[in-house]
């Protein structure tokens, strides 16, 4: 490929200080920072390190493409970036594996509900699983740092809503929540709108979303038997 060689030479003589091979200096800077960091780095912080006038997104996209076929890939997590070993090489690196966190089935399902339905309250999680959350499930997930309380639902009792964290995205190698596997299929099948029309609640705790304006909350003396949407305590 003599043409490449020629090009390299030309670039070098044009821009002696740009050093090595005509590759923009900002890529070297980004490489250095991202290789050195122990945690994903914020796009804005990276931008501040680059020469004025350089578009950090362009540079990151280019770097990502450069590393796409390598043993180490550049990945985006939300608004942060980091290098990770290529996922097809996990066999090579398993020796490093720490005792994998073994989540219970209940915890995995609860995590999935929080990820796909967020923001979601505990009562909504219970409604989808059809079972009262066993004590300790949310506790375990909070401990992993994958979920967090996001806010409070504007509903009676103002229950806490849960959502996933950046640590969750980082752990599962997702750029954003929209990249969750199977999300589009779930949406397409109408399974994420989630909340059943009022009056449709099948036993077990139901979410407050099913309680409409035209429904009166049950009186304490009413026999609800858990058949009617239960209000958040």
């Amino acid at each position, binding site marked *: 490929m003599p043409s490449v060689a020629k090009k390299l030479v030309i670039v070098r003589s044009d821009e002696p200080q740009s050093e090595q091979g005509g590759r923009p200096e900002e890529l070297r800077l980004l490489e250095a*920072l991202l*290789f*050195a*960091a*122990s945690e994903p780095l914020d796009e804005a*912080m990276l931008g*501040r*390190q680059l020469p004025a006038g350089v578009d950090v997104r362009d540079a990151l996209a280019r770097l990502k493409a450069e590393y796409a076929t390598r043993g180490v890939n550049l990945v985006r997590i939300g608004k942060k970036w980091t290098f*990770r*070993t290529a*996922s097809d090489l*996990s066999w090579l*690196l398993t020796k490093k*594996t*720490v005792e*994998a966190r073994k989540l219970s*089935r*209940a915890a*995995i*399902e609860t*995590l*999935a*509900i929080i*990820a*796909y339905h967020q923001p979601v309250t505990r009562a909504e999680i219970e409604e*989808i*699983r*059809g*079972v*009262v959350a066993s004590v300790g499930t949310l506790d375990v997930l*909070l*401990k992993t*740092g994958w979920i*967090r309380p996001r806010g409070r639902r504007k509903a009676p009792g103002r229950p806490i809503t849960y959502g996933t964290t950046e640590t969750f995205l*980082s*752990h*599962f*190698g997702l750029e954003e929540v929209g990249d*969750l*596997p*199977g*999300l589009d299929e*779930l949406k397409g*099948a109408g*399974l994420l709108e*989630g909340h*059943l*029309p009022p*009056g*449709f609640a*099948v*036993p*077990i705790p139901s979410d407050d979303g099913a309680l409409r304006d035209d429904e009166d909350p049950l009186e*304490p*003396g*009413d*026999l609800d*038997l*858990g*058949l009617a949407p239960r209000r958040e305590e």
Partner: protein
Amino acid sequence: MSPDDFETTLGEERASSEPALMVDVEGFEGPLDLLLTLARQQKVDLAKISILALADQYLVFIEAARKLRLELAADYLVMAAWLAYLKSRLLLPEAEPGDGPSAEEMAMALAHRLRRLEALRNVATQLMERPQLDRDVFARGDPEPIAEIKQPEWSATLYDLLSAYAVQRRRTAMSFVRVAKRTVWSLAEARATLERMIGQSTDWTRVDQYLIAYVVDPALAVTAMASSFASALELVREGSAEIHQKQAYAPIYMRKRVGAGNGNGSASNLGAQGNA
């Protein structure tokens, strides 16, 4: 609900469902999970599932578990009661159009919930199969400190904070704590209560009114209602009581069955009927 019809269906279903009965109820994550497992045995698309057949299978399962005197969580019994109710609604012509959802709509809603749970389990599996950090992919093993990044000098997670708060609040609260009374109403207790209550009345009475008289501690209300409802349905099935509900979520009325003898509520008598 017609007890005879119920019995016949149970008899027919039993043979084909026998293997399912071997499944340990402990292995299920609640009634929806059990229903989903039973639905899969129908080996059809969940969209085309027969809710009626599913309700039968579920009721057979619960019945068998109770014959074996397995302790069943209230969740399972409430679902059984609801399915028995749904089944009766599906089998009988709709009495009054009413404003509540029709039986068909209720069945569809249940099918929707089953589909949703199944779909969720599929994506949960896909999620867990993704390459995971420190299991399949790895970050830089020997990072170098970056000048621009201020290392936080102190570390603490939200979990640390919350558990620290809970632990110490409980610690100081404990010094004032009294021994709690038992918080579960067993089915036997509920049944005994109901039998005594309907023994006194041939008028329609709201079941919750039965309970209020007995359940002094409001903390017991939920468990008492669940157990009572399950027991009430059993009494109805055995022919010693009648139940009436105008529509879903409306108050439930109950009375001693007209013509039923006073001694009809004894346990031995009922047991014999159950085995017939």
